[in-house]
């Protein structure tokens, strides 16, 4: 039944695909000048996955250095560069790019459009982001820092003043950091504007706001949040450059400036940034969990409201990164309470995912495994977040490995797990072939075990008082065994990611043919061939409910009968 009604009548192009006779250079040229949202989406993802490997290698280097006390695997200078570059890379060049890549690829397909609202702006944004990444990494060979030529940024990804002042960070390693993020930030801003305009103005007939797939909703909320969070970072970095190049005094305490103002500006960006990364991950979970539970998502309007709620609350919590700075008790109390408030909308989301699973006919395929692990891990990350939001507790554990464990539980346990889920779920749509299931299960279990070995253990070294960002430690602190476990866990995760990279390449050539709709899913992207033609839909689709393909496959029991 399902196979007969697919694809939607009239949406399929019947002309046979022309055999490409292009030379390699022409093929490359095609990718460079493309304005097609699907190709740009893939470029974003390839770029992000490349930097995932780079940032992962940096993490492994850090963990080898910390595996035993008194190690000299890296020099202290290189160690500082490694943790700065690891953080900056993972947040700006991996998380943002992969998630915006998915948004680029999926948002037009999901709302029945032929492209983004501004295809050329889209290409411009990608190349700006790409240039930002190159600029950041060029510092490894071209930057002139405290240690001479070849100095990468080494001031931490938060780049606290006054360490970034000319006197303490001579040379231009820090300038590479600021300029690279300003450039990449413009790219991000362009994409965010584009996604909002696409979702607002390019929807197909019948795709009302409350019929948009949750992934699209989450990307709209994320983009809105991006508009008002990336820009403060840009502003703060412009101030930093004014201080460094024009002799300004924004963060110069000797002339009456304030280093704490930088902290405020940075975290006004930095905290919502976590939500910019995690909201698209929520979007992925909200697409994958229903399809593999064979049930419609539970509480769609509540999910939308909770997403918007998270975005709003996230704008008022930044100073919980700064309890140890010494704010007034009123300030502390405000940020304790507002941070606790984040738990309410996120709790709504977790309960909705659980209710979607409840009574469902769960299929344990690889994307679903990643999403299930996400729900559990995100819950734990949320709970340690509530612990850290309590100011007195925070005073004890701030800048310890407990904090590192907490935010890696969010960034890896929630976001990276969902990125993997998304890649396993949509790879067939992008390439026409399924990723290998056995390799995928190996990847999942290795990564899952490695993740817990590393980050569960990190909570305990944090309790035992190990501070973050230290080069090495004394052997008599009682951290030795735990640190070794953490490093072994890191290596296991590294092996899992390499397996995954092999799977991506292997399945591209040898994978099982996917067909249009390998998961029996319900959103519009599965109605077009895999990979979709450049124009997506030969005829503009019309939808009547939140699950247009369900209506198509089950004309006797369509969704629109039940939806308001």
């Amino acid at each position: 039944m399902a196979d007969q009604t697919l694809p939607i009548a009239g949406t399929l192009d019947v002309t046979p695909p022309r055999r490409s006779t292009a030379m390699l250079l022409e093929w490359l040229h095609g990718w460079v000048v493309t304005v097609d949202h699907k190709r740009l989406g893939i470029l974003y993802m390839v770029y992000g996955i490349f930097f995932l490997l780079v940032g992962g290698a940096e993490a492994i280097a850090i963990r080898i250095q910390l595996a035993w006390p008194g190690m000299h695997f890296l020099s202290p200078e290189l160690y500082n560069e490694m943790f700065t570059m690891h953080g900056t890379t993972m947040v700006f060049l991996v998380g943002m790019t992969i998630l915006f890549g998915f948004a680029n690829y999926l948002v037009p397909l999901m709302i029945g459009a032929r492209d983004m609202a501004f295809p050329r702006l889209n290409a411009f944004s990608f190349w700006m982001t790409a240039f930002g990444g190159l600029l950041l990494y060029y510092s490894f060979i071209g930057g002139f820092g405290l240690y001479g030529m070849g100095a990468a940024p080494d001031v931490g990804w938060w780049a606290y003043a006054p360490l970034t002042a000319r006197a303490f960070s001579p040379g231009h390693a820090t300038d590479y950091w600021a300029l690279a993020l300003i450039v990449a930030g413009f790219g991000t801003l362009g994409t965010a504007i584009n996604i909002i305009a696409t979702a607002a103005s390019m929807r197909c007939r019948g795709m009302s706001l409350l019929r948009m797939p949750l992934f699209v909703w989450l990307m709209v909320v994320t983009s809105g949040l991006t508009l008002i969070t990336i820009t403060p970072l840009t502003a703060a970095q412009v101030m930093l450059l004014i201080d460094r190049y024009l002799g300004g005094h924004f963060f110069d305490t000797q002339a009456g400036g304030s280093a704490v103002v930088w902290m405020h500006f940075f975290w006004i960006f930095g905290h919502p940034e976590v939500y910019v990364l995690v909201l698209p991950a929520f979007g992925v979970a909200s697409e994958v969990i229903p399809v593999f539970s064979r049930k419609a998502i539970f509480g769609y309007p509540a999910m939308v409201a909770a997403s918007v709620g998270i975005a709003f609350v996230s704008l008022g919590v930044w100073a919980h990164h700064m309890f140890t700075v010494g704010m007034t008790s009123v300030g502390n109390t405000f940020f304790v309470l507002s941070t606790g408030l984040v738990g309410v909308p996120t709790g709504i989301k977790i309960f909705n995912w659980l209710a979607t699973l409840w009574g469902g006919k769960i299929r344990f395929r690889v994307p679903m495994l990643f999403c299930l692990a996400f729900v559990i891990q995100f819950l734990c990350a949320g709970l340690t977040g509530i612990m850290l939001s309590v100011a007195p507790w925070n005073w004890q554990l701030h800048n310890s490995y407990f904090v590192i464990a907490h935010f890696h539980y969010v960034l890896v346990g929630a976001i990276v797990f969902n990125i993997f889920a998304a890649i396993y779920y949509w790879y067939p749509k992008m390439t026409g072939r399924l990723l290998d299931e056995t390799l995928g299960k190996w990847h999942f279990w290795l990564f899952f075990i490695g993740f817990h070995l590393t980050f569960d253990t990190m909570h305990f070294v944090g309790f035992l008082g190990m501070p973050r960002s230290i080069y090495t430690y004394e052997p008599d602190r009682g951290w030795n065994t735990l640190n070794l476990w953490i490093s072994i866990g890191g290596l296991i995760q590294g092996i899992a990611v390499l397996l995954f990279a092999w799977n991506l390449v292997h399945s591209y050539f040898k994978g099982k043919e996917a067909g249009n709709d390998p998961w029996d899913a319900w959103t519009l992207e599965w109605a077009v061939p895999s990979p979709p033609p450049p124009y997506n839909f030969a005829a503009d689709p019309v939808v009547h409910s939140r699950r247009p393909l369900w209506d198509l496959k089950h004309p006797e029991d369509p969704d629109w009968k039940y939806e308001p």
Partner: protein
Amino acid sequence: MSAIPVTPVAGPWSLPSRGRVAMLSLITGESAIFTIFVVAYVFYIGKSLTPPYPQQVLDIPIFNTICLLSSSVTIWLAERQIDRGKIRLFAAWWALTIALGMIFMIGTAIEWHKLIYIDGLTIRTNLFGTTFYSLVGLHATHVVVGLIGLSLILLFTLTGHVTEEHSERIQVFALYWHFVDAVWVVVFTVVYIVGR
């Protein structure tokens, strides 16, 4: 095969203009940038350790402000003319808008010249100089970008490339100019009234 379930879609299908949505999004992002600079300015009011202080050197630029704010009116009149298809009148109002914007920039240049060469205030003199030149300079940069855009459109109009059908795009661009004017109200209040 024609299995698409048919239910009536209520009313005609209309969506907001993508240009307008995008420009409003851009303005939202820009507002955040200005907010950070304004907050920095307000926070650092009275924290300069060395002279010159604002009350000694700043004069209120009333003429400048009147020019910039009235350019919002003239661009609105230009928008109305192109909506009615009167291209010549449109070009006239549009050129007047550019002239008013230019007067504002010249006024700023004269003010900065006085501050730098007579009062000895530069961006590195003290905190006031740092915050003043960066906030007012950020706004002036936006005025310059706006003037470049306005002039390009005037050029296209004079060479006969702008017709009534471009009304929508013209209005989207005018939104940006209105935003630049509105930001001046905030900058003016903070720098010349509160901070002085």
